[in-house]
């Protein structure tokens, strides 16, 4: 006979993630990216650089963006493909790509 609700043996369904974390990359990666961006663009230390900072807003042109990506490649020992490099516009984009490439490298 089916005991139904008396036993607690129901399967646990995974809940859909309604709350999305604003920064989906590792914080130490984001910190390193911010530091490299700051150095490349020679930003004053009181200017905030966060996950959502767009390079264009921080005063970077496309040449600066290429240099930043080069700096990130050297720092993390990765190689960014041409297509991926074109799509990097914010600090978060860069950090997520770095995390993905580093995990692929160590996998």
């Amino acid at each position, binding site marked *: 006979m089916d005991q139904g609700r008396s036993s607690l043996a129901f399967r646990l369904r995974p809940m859909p993630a309604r709350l999305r974390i604003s920064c989906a990359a590792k914080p130490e990666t984001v910190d390193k990216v911010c530091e490299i961006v700051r150095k490349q663009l020679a930003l004053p230390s009181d200017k905030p650089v966060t996950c959502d900072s767009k390079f264009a807003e921080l005063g970077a042109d*496309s*040449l600066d963006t*290429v*240099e930043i*990506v*080069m700096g990130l490649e*050297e720092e993390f020992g990765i190689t960014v493909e*041409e297509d991926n490099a074109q799509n990097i516009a914010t600090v978060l984009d860069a950090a997520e790509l770095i995390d993905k490439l580093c995990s692929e490298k160590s996998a």
Partner: protein
Amino acid sequence: MAAAPTRIDVLQLYRSLMRVARQFCDYNIREYTKRRTIDAFRDNKILTNCSQLSAAFSDGKAQLEVAKRRALVYSLYAPKVKSIMDIKPS
């Protein structure tokens, strides 16, 4: 007359030049290549004339070929002793 290079072409050339700069073993040549690339691209950023753009772009491509050949040849004769600037302070 060659067609004017697109923005993507120019950025790809920039990236290629920076990458080839990294391949040099000699610190001085590496730093010079990077510095010269950055300076040249920044100076020519304001160009709008089609023929000037094409000329600058083909000049850049020729320099890229030169740099690639040089990087290969230098790597065959790389000195064992690294420059003091390459040695990271421990």
